[in-house]
């Protein structure tokens, strides 16, 4: 993936460039808003990571400018301002996701992946498939290998989100944000419990598990494959 990083903090940028390069991405780095805008106009990127506060041109204004010019590259906003309202402002300006500093690299990569994936697939179909698992968005039905599975409304949304991000790591805070609309981290394992319940319904009675735990990061819904690290 080719990624543009606009971040004025050299240390943070260096760490991000290193981390993302190691996971196989190509990173270009701009240290201020104006330079970022030039690069974004000149090149085509798969996604952009833009810091909220930047010299020369503020991160939000940079995003707004890009959107006005018709550039729809997915943008992840980085900010030291952790506030629900700040988040809303950032998303209104045209950002696609919002991550508060300090963050974990795994959280950032997971979100970045979710963004690009969303941009690539565009409109989802009304029936989602992962292996023999099927979720019908219209009829609110879930089946696995032809057997109907009865899910609570919240479990349904949880599975829907996981299936929309098949093959990607989905972090606990992504689930809390997108399924429950909570923008904070509870200290107890609320998400783990919900996942284990869901797992009990979709995986327990079947041979190959679909819902995997990715250690130190989150969860991944995927057809059993040798590359999956289960834990």
């Amino acid at each position: 993936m080719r990624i543009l990083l606009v971040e004025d903090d050299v240390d943070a940028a260096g760490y991000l460039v290193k981390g993302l390069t190691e996971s196989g991405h190509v990173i270009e780095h701009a240290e201020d808003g104006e330079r970022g805008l030039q690069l974004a106009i000149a090149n085509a990127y798969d996604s952009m990571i833009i810091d909220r506060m930047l010299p020369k041109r503020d991160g939000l204004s940079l995003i707004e400018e890009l959107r006005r010019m018709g550039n729809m590259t997915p943008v992840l906003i980085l900010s030291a301002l952790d506030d629900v309202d700040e988040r809303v402002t950032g998303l209104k300006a045209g950002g696609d996701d919002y991550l508060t500093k300090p963050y974990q690299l795994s959280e950032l990569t997971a979100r970045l992946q979710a963004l690009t994936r969303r941009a690539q697939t565009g409109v989802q179909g009304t029936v989602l498939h992962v292996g023999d698992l099927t979720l019908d968005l219209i009829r609110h039905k879930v089946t696995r290998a032809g057997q109907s599975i009865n899910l609570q409304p919240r479990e349904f949304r949880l599975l829907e989100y996981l299936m929309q991000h098949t093959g990607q790591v989905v972090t606990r805070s992504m689930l809390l944000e997108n399924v429950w609309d909570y923008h904070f981290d509870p200290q107890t394992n609320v998400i783990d419990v919900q996942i284990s319940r869901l797992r009990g319904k979709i995986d327990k009675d079947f041979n190959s598990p679909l819902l995997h735990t990715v250690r130190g990061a989150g969860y991944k819904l995927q057809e059993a494959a040798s590359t999956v690290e289960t834990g």
Partner: protein
Amino acid sequence: MSTVGGDVTRQAHGRRLFRTSAFRLSLIYATLFSALSAATLGFIYWSTRDQIESQVDARLRLETDYLINLFKSGAMPELLEAIQRRNQIDTYGRFYYLDNSESAVAEQTGEALPIRLKSIRSHTTRNMGDVADLPPGSPRAFNPVRVAETQLSNGLKLTIGHEISDEKALLDHTFALVAGATLLTLLFSLIGGLSIGTSVLRRIDSVSRTASEIMSGDLSQRLKVTERDDEFDEIAAKLNQMLGRIEDLIRSMRQVTNNVAHDLRSPLTRLRNRLEVTLLEERDPQNYRAVLGEAIEDADSLIHTFNAMLSIARLEAGLDAIQWEPASIGELANELAELYGAVAEEDGLHFEADIAADPRYLCNRHLIAQALTNLLDNAIKYTCPQGRVTLSVTGDDDAFRIVVGDNGPGIPEHERERVFQRFVRLENERNSPGNGLGLSLVQAVARLHGATVQLDDNEPGLRVTMRFVRKR
């Protein structure tokens, strides 16, 4: 030197006294009242004078008319005799005389002869020989008089004088009274103003002394509140409340700084030691991975602590950045009950939700959710297996309460205030995970919403009640 210094201070004090609003106000009132009383008394003075004058004048006219009638009847000797007799009897301080007028002989114009009345400060008699006159050298001739002069047709002038020294004295006395009363009013208002000003200054000085002491660092100082319960006491009490709040804030800030230093040092030390020990000898990659994984967990918990601290600080900083919207509390509670019910069940606990009400409340839903999450996290964390955790919502839109209860170890009564402070962790939970910020955040959220948080004995366990009232 000290006396000079003292004088200077006294002068400065005097200048301040004259600048006080109490003094200025009393000065204004003094002037107004003096002017008013002077006007009233002045009116009395002038009308008394008029009254006296017209009485004297009437008497003079009467006498003049009588003598002129004698003159008109042509009986000059009788006229002269009448004048002499009157002068000798000398009643009522009156005197009479005829003299040669310097002016031309007035024409005989019918019956009436004009009488001219005037007041004379002092009257000197003149000896006119054949005309009737005062006894020369009569001392009273030098007193202030009121005279009636009439020009007779034969070139003589009839003058009747009426001594007015008594009346004059009365009037002078009245005038002195008026002036004195006015001056007294002024003087008393001045003294009153000064004394009010002084007492105001004294109380202001006590306030400013306390303020200086507070500024020099003694935050425990409070303004003196007297028994009088007047407006000064009212404002002093309010300021004391404010000072109390400021002291609380500063104390908690100091404590937070201390606690931050203390509480972050141990996990950082642990992290450092872990890494150091790992580096002591060669290990296989898997071992390194494991240690790094643990190091990341340590760092995560530090980040979590920092985030919580930042959230609390932001909440305490104020309202401006918070978005308010009506939210359904019952719905929120049900969501949380679903989430935590599952967690409780997993931990072998009984979870009971009693969402009896669904108030609509103007709030920040995320913050309320976070506060309740903290309470539920705690309840589950401190309750042993087979224990019971409850969540209930009761009330209506105007006032409702959310109660989270458990039957864990609870919090001893004397600790219930303290646990709201940041980083405070009770002895028996030192070894369990947590950063001592949970309840601080709950309280910050409650404060922001104008709600209260109360900790009670759940017999056994802890019961946390959040009371909300509808915002006006």
